[in-house]
């Protein structure tokens, strides 16, 4: 009986607690007004003492002394800085698995199939002002899987993260990772092809040669099928379909690369097959071939100053962003790491320290430029009327090392708020205490040793290493 009562009591506690306190609140207030802030618009300068009005998830107005409806949520922006939500053009957050490494060409796999919307690192990224991620397949193969562009709608089901209208993309990779340089030979096991940068070129060439034929086969079939209804259609090949889309300009190529020679190789190959590389990722030696990258029309998505973590990164310099920007390349700063993603503002600011980019140029590195690289520049990347209300509100200039994010909004909804985060901590402690009392959570006397948290690496994921997710 006593047991029964305690159970009842426990149930009462449990049921009064929020099911998942981390879930973001909704529905959004129809209007949100940020009053009297410094607004870094990216496209039309820095506006002092300015209001930003959001309505139905969009930026409705920017100006002084704006009027909002009576039930609008009002955020006092005095002393604060508003910038567009940061866009990370190279992330592996929320992926249950990063690589399909068994084959050299895995264009049939889709990161969208393995999203984990509960990955706590997503929340930590929101707290760094990040709102959009380009989730890329790893770099285990010359042609990797398809990407997914998401807004970090933490607390929602995976389907609600998908960025509507983002250009489909795919991951390519060159150099050490696809050569499996760090993988030891195993007796009796034939190494996966390719083993050299020559073989990498050959693999990509072969894939596009097949894709061309595949497209022809389908074109011929469609033509013939107009007359003959009794034709068996060609086999649909999920590996080649994305490559055909690339040839048709309907899918962006994001190519992981390091050294100058392999960058030129891919440019030449793409030119030969008549497609474009949308972004070179990492592209640490991009500064050596900046004019060729610019001539091809490719963008570059890079680290601010990472270098020397492997041989092909030894010639990396922090002036990379500046040199490529001046050569006319659209450059963005990415994280490739859940850790670094939390401080991309600092990474962007470094381009002013090294290489003398202007504040606006540096801001673009994590806002408008990655938006262009993902084909979402009409939706996000700057503070303009009509764009999505994806904003980060900082307590100081985001390029100051002393600043932090107070609030992050996506589509006008608050997904991170420091005040609320602080206020929630005692509640979570209470919930924990209650849950620990529940029967299935009681420790076993004869049980095994509880797991200890691993020290998490914070350096370069370099998208080839499977990072353990909590």
């Amino acid at each position, binding site marked *: 009986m006593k047991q029964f009562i305690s159970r009842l009591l426990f149930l009462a506690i449990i049921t009064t607690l929020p099911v998942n306190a981390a879930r973001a609140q909704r529905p959004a207030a129809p209007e949100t007004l940020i009053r009297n802030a410094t607004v870094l618009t990216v496209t039309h300068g820095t506006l002092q003492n300015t209001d930003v009005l959001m309505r139905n998830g969009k930026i409705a107005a920017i100006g002084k002394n704006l009027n909002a409806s009576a039930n609008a949520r009002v955020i006092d922006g005095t002393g604060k800085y508003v910038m567009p939500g940061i866009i990370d053009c190279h992330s592996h957050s929320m992926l249950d698995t990063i690589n399909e490494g068994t084959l050299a060409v895995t264009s049939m796999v889709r990161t969208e199939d393995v999203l984990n919307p509960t990955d706590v690192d997503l929340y930590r990224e929101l*707290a760094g002002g990040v709102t959009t991620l380009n989730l890329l397949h790893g770099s285990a193969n010359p042609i990797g899987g398809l990407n997914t562009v998401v807004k970090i709608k933490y607390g929602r089901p995976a389907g609600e993260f998908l960025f509507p209208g983002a250009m489909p993309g795919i991951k390519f990779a060159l150099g050490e990772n696809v050569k499996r340089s760090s993988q030891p030979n195993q007796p009796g096991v034939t190494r996966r092809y390719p083993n050299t940068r020559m073989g990498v070129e050959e693999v990509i060439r072969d894939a596009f040669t097949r894709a061309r034929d595949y497209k022809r086969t389908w074109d011929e079939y469609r033509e013939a099928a107009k007359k003959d209804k009794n034709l068996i259609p060609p086999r649909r090949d999920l590996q080649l379909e994305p490559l055909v889309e690339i040839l048709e300009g309907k899918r962006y190529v994001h190519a992981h690369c390091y050294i100058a020679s392999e960058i030129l190789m891919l440019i030449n190959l793409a030119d030969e097959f008549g497609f474009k590389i949308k972004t070179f990722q990492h592209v640490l030696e991009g500064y050596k071939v900046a004019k060729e990258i610019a001539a091809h029309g490719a963008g570059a998505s890079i680290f601010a100053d990472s270098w020397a973590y492997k041989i092909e990164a030894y010639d990396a310099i922090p002036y990379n962003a500046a040199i490529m920007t001046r050569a006319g390349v659209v450059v963005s700063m990415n994280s490739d790491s859940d850790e670094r993603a939390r401080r991309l503002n600092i990474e962007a600011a470094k381009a002013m320290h090294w290489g003398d980019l202007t504040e606006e140029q540096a801001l673009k590195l994590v806002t408008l430029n990655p938006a262009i690289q993902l084909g979402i520049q009409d939706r996000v990347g700057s503070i303009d009327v009509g764009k999505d209300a994806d904003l980060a509100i900082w307590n100081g200039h985001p390029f100051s090392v002393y600043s932090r994010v107070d609030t992050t909004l996506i589509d006008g909804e608050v997904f991170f708020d420091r005040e609320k985060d602080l206020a929630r*901590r005692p509640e979570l402690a209470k919930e924990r205490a209650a849950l620990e009392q529940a029967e299935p959570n009681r420790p076993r006397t004869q049980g095994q040793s509880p797991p*200890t948290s691993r020290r998490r690496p914070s350096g370069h994921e370099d998208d080839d290493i499977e990072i353990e997710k909590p």
Partner: protein
Amino acid sequence: MIRTLLALIICATPLFAQQIGNPTAQDGVIPPRGFFAIRNAKIVTVSGPDIENGTIVIRDGKIEAVGANVSVPAGAQTIDGSGLSVYPGMIDAGTNMGLVEVPQGASGTVDLSEVGDLNPNAKAIIAVNPHSAHIAVTRVEGITNTLTAPTGGLISGQATLINLLGTSPKEMAVVPQLALVINYPRIGFGGGGFGGFQQQAPQSLAETLTANERQIDQIRKLLRDAEAYGRAQDAYAKDKSLPRPDRNVVLEPLVPYVRGEQPVIFRADREAEIRGALRFADEMKLKPIILGGNDAAKVATLLKEKNVPVILTGIFSLPAREDDAYDALYETAAKLQQAGVRYCISTGDAGAEVRNLAQYAGMAAAFGLSRADAVKAVTLYPAQILNVADRLGSIETGKMANLVITDGDLLEIRTRIRYLLIDGRPVVLSSRHTELNDAFKNRK
């Protein structure tokens, strides 16, 4: 040896064929100490109040005078500090600077961890590569000193405090053997060090605890042996009639540490390991410093009580536990400051990222630390913790002239270093990176 290794790599790796002149070689000559007077500068002394418009005189590698009303002595080369600020050079007390050139795919350039668990005789100063590209890349960002430590095993070896300038380890060394480095064993894992990451997951409770105790016991036994060894050597020195004890290269270096004459750095991040390290240090009467210290705020009371300092390396790490607050590691420094625990801020990096030390301190300041304390956390505090505050860490008369002259706030990203002095020697603000930049920036 190191040169041979590098030469080998250069021959073996076609990539290096692209390598251009490395300025860190400094033409084989260390720049001479100068006689300087920095005038009209804002002087952030760190140890005292800022001097808004002052003068610093530097001679023979030392700060000869500093103040608002110091006159420029005859013969001194003057540096106009108008609009500039002078700071003491930053010190990163938790690096492997000079021991690693390229950590992955070039194991020949890695001199971090010796074979085996107990290597007190592994001395970082032996392997520090003065010509590593990392050194110039780091110092031009205002970091003048690093504590360079070996890693791995249980007793990793001895750390060295170096100036990031010099053509030989000897020229660089400030304190050749400053501290012993122990990876305090993690529960459920092998060592407490970088290697701990690869260790097996915990097994049964009893086994886990036993394995942990066994590792601690290994360390304890070696330290006790060293104690006995030291006693025997001393006794023999006084009384030659005693049997002569054999010299032992493993035990010998441990003697000053087991006697509490020099500090022992315990690498420990989790609360349990920090507490364990403190207990162990008490038991063995060591002089402990905690390196890592992710959970240090949870042990603040004890750390304060024992007066044990912490070298915080995890500010930019992702919090280890899913439920940790997002800013748990950002705000550790502020919490330690508030609790009165001695601490300093470090990148904990092997080399390439050490140049970003200022941003680690800046992040701590964004989350509760005062800006002045953040500067101290990378200058005076590490000097105090490493017991070299008489020479480094602030701008005071008599201290080593490791000075950074900036055009703004030391920790701000946009700030540029305008002049750099290490040991009173003027340092050219170039590095492998500036040279590659110069080589390619105008390529048409």
